[in-house]
């Protein structure tokens, strides 16, 4: 795998092939509401990289807020598969936390049972990561074992170096893509790349408010199940669900049928949230997670305990979006610190 060094103007060559009518380029840019978010890019100059991560993650381009799965027709007894957009897309500007989140989503949606809808979108997607130089006050990626300056979970990874970018090939897909456009590009050494990655990791880590050592409580969070500190957070929670909708690894969905006309309809899925009371409501009207305490604890334990048990990985990448979006100041970092304290670590 090669490493290149390109200038800002050469960045255009890297992205432009995706600016056609048949493909789409998704990158952080300023949206009409004045916020940075992952949008379809029309012009390379719109891309905004010098900001902290967009509040809404890029997951909706692989796992849309709502999408039709199958269609049915009264006259035709067969189910018709819904057309998934065959558009090839590039996700550009994802930071190491978001790249780790996509790696988690890949294992969630395609390890045991392969989710046709997700896998098809994923196969059509080329992912370009960028080292993170602009953390927010909510970020805690280093606590989750992620280094802001480096990642292995992308097809191509960009490391800013002064006015230039170092371009690292990480997958065959990335290698193939670069081979077609990298004519005349300067190659860079692996040492330069490693030094630059370390420098960014160090600089960005120093800006983070704190690093929590979670090694001693990994896999032990269920021991805090009946501790008092959960009350402190759940009584403030207003069950808005914003934390789950802005989480890059929250993958729960609901399925419903919708009629398009009197005889035609579709089965679609839409995002759901474990914060909501009807999420676990049984047909018998029994609800195993009836209070918001149950539901807040479930969300945290799912991220930090259950996926550790089942998949041997955290399903939190420390991106801090849940902290940024919470209107009542519930801070995931504080919960982790309280859990640590409750476990005597």
């Amino acid at each position, binding site marked *: 795998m090669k490493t290149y060094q390109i200038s800002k103007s050469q960045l255009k060559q890297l992205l432009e092939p995706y600016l056609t009518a048949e493909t789409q380029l998704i990158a952080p840019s300023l949206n009409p509401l004045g916020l940075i978010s992952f949008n379809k890019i029309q012009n390379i100059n719109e891309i905004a990289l010098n900001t902290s991560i967009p509040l809404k993650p890029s997951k909706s381009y692989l796992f849309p807020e709502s999408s039709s799965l199958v269609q049915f027709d009264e006259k035709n007894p067969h189910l018709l598969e819904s057309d998934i957009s065959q558009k090839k897309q590039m996700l550009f500007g994802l930071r190491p936390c978001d790249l780790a989140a996509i790696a988690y989503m890949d294992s969630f949606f395609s390890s045991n049972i392969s989710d046709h809808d997700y896998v098809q979108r994923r196969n059509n997607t080329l992912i370009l990561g960028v080292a993170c130089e602009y953390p927010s006050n909510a970020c805690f990626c280093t606590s989750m074992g992620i280094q802001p300056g480096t990642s292995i979970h992308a097809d191509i990874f960009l490391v800013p170096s002064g006015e230039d970018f170092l371009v690292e090939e990480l997958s065959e897909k990335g290698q193939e893509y670069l081979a077609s456009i990298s004519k005349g590009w300067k190659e860079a050494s692996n040492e330069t790349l490693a030094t630059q990655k370390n420098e960014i990791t160090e600089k960005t880590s120093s800006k983070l408010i704190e690093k929590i050592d979670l090694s001693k409580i990994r896999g032990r969070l269920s021991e805090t199940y009946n501790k008092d500190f959960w009350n402190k957070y759940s009584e403030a929670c207003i069950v808005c669900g*914003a934390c789950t*909708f802005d989480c890059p690894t929250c993958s729960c969905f609901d399925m419903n049928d919708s009629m398009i006309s009197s005889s035609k309809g579709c089965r679609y899925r839409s995002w759901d949230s474990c914060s909501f009371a009807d999420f676990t409501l049984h047909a018998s009207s029994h609800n195993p997670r009836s209070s918001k305490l149950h539901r807040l604890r479930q969300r945290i334990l799912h991220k930090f305990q259950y996926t550790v048990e089942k998949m041997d990985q955290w399903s939190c990448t420390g991106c801090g979006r849940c902290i940024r979006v919470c209107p009542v*100041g519930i801070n995931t970092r504080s919960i982790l610190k309280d859990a640590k304290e409750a476990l005597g670590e």
Partner: protein
Amino acid sequence: MINEIRDAIIQYLKSVMKENDVVLALRSSSTPGILTPCILRNKADLDQIEAGFFHLNNLAVYLSEFFQKENRLSTLQGYLYVLCKPCDTKAVTQMISDQQINPNKLKLVVYACEGMADMKKVKNEIGLDKDIKAIDLHLTELSLTLLDGSPLSIPVSKVISSKCLECNKEYHLTMSHVFVGDEKKWKSHPYSIATAENKVLLQDQKKGKDLFDQLKAELSACIRCNACRNVCHACFCSDRCIFDKPKMTVGFLDKEISPIDNILFHMIRFYHVAPNCTACGECERICPQGIPLSHLYEYFHRLMQESLDFSAGSSDSMRQAMLSYRLGEDLV
């Protein structure tokens, strides 16, 4: 100034709080610029209370749930004291007139609010590439420490919430309450930190815009997460909301996201809460997509005033604006 008020609130609560009394207030959180609601049951915990410029939350939203729970468990023996900005009391008044809460066990602690922060404006001031490590208020200056350790100060007039610039300092309460601070002085002064210049700008922005087109554009970003509904004090249908059970309302409104369904969702929601909405702005603050929902809600709030002579939360007369009819009323 702010600290004086905070101390006065704590002092007052300490003097009146008895065993079995409960206080619903705010304490500091680990996120800069945000306070966390808390329920305090001991006198010793009262010192945690925070109030003032970062008191963004409308605590009324907790009341119906609190009373439902306490009624079920019959645990509330004493009074519930609730910390309120004067504007938040409208929500409480409205909930009483809608018979959602029992005022007999409720005592409001209203204080001389000097306006609240708009954290979106703060973010815009510091720039998108930086973030706040710590934030504090010193008189009319907001002093910040950024993540890289550099200090920054912003005049409060630049980051005060737009809602506060239009505040008429009117509130109506017949129920048991206390005003912490000098009420007369508070009423007679416009916000010392709001400037006349800001006010003019705000009114200009709202003039001559085609609301529907604007809404269509803004609401296209909606992801139908229901956060605006969940934070709303006027949405008290709890587990009987029509948006929660799409299976029972097939063909009415699906959870599927489409531009027309998004508008329909917000329109249905608005017409449903119109007689109870006090334009507190919590829906806008909470929206994870940053949709400026206040445009919509303030607009309809004004419309209710102009056409039906009704302003939610301005009296506990039990008049139901959308369910009653007065002679001579031409708009139904």
